[in-house]
């Protein structure tokens, strides 16, 4: 039988921790956005990089900015909720021949959770390009945070001819309204409550043995005949009640 104790103080503590986490999230968002350069200007976003000049090597632009500028977590591109991003691939067919497909994949735990392909390739001269209007998709309701993206140029047989990794930071509404962080916060609060009430588990193994350790009342006298009548009488054994 489990005892019930008023967990008022623990509930207040858990609520305080949850409140502190919720207040800390906009601070973290602000810190991340403060270190992230503002690259989401719409003016140069619809222009593929290949139309500017001849491309000497392969490159990918994210709203007009080269993705090599976001090669670390601290310099990740910020993607707001429901934001569409113009991603432009540009390469020189002489240095990277045989490109038939451009791909942008978002990775989480090493697996691609979101993949977009663009097959029509424009241009065949000194520079070729491919553009896509990239959105996070339905996964933005589930996760947020920093994710790695891999932009790659593929051949017709699926071989990766060129690739580049960069980072983006997905933002949820009010920095919290995604499913996974909400579940993690609730789980963390519950486990914190379970950790704080773990001290009560220490009494469980100590209160039961004195009750169950009473010796059987009739086992010591087998020849008296009382052992056959005692269990059928329905009375409680001596010493069984505390």
């Amino acid at each position, binding site marked *: 039988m489990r005892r019930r104790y008023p967990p008022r103080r623990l509930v207040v503590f858990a609520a305080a921790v949850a409140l502190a*986490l919720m207040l*800390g*999230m906009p601070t*973290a*968002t602000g810190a*991340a956005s403060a270190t992230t350069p503002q690259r989401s200007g719409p003016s140069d976003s619809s222009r593929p990089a290949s139309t500017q000049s001849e491309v000497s090597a392969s490159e990918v632009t994210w709203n007009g900015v080269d993705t090599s500028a976001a090669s670390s*977590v601290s310099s*990740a591109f910020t993607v707001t909720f429901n934001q569409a991003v113009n991603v432009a691939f540009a390469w020189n067919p002489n240095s990277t021949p045989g490109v038939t497909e451009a791909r942008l994949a978002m*990775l*989480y*735990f*090493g*697996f691609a959770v979101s993949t977009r392909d663009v097959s029509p390739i424009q241009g065949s001269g000194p520079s070729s390009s491919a553009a896509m209007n990239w959105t996070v998709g339905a996964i933005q309701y589930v*996760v*947020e*945070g*920093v*994710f*790695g993206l891999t932009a790659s140029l593929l051949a017709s047989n699926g071989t990766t001819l060129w690739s580049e*990794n960069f*980072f983006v*930071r997905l933002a949820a509404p009010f920095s919290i309204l*995604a499913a*996974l*962080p909400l579940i*993690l*916060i609730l*789980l*963390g609060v519950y*486990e*914190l409550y*379970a*950790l*704080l009430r*773990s*001290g*009560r*588990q*220490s*009494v*469980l*193994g*100590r*209160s039961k043995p*004195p009750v169950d350790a009473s010796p059987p009342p009739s086992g010591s006298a087998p020849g008296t005949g009382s052992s056959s009548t005692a269990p059928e009488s329905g009375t409680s054994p001596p010493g069984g009640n505390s």
Partner: protein
Amino acid sequence: MSAASHGAAAGVVLGLVAVLLAQQLAYLDLTSLTAAIEYLVIGAVIGGLLGTVIGWALGKRYLRLHPPNV
């Protein structure tokens, strides 16, 4: 289940939650599988050790405040 093991179980889960929540708050990068598993294992071990110590200490305190009737 003793207080220390109960605290260890809660601490392991808290360590895993802390790592995943840090990624969601843009403090950690869990893109690579190897690095992600390393972070999770480190978080679980540290959380388990801290949970064991906290559970053991809370068990001692509870028994001191609520001595069992022998």
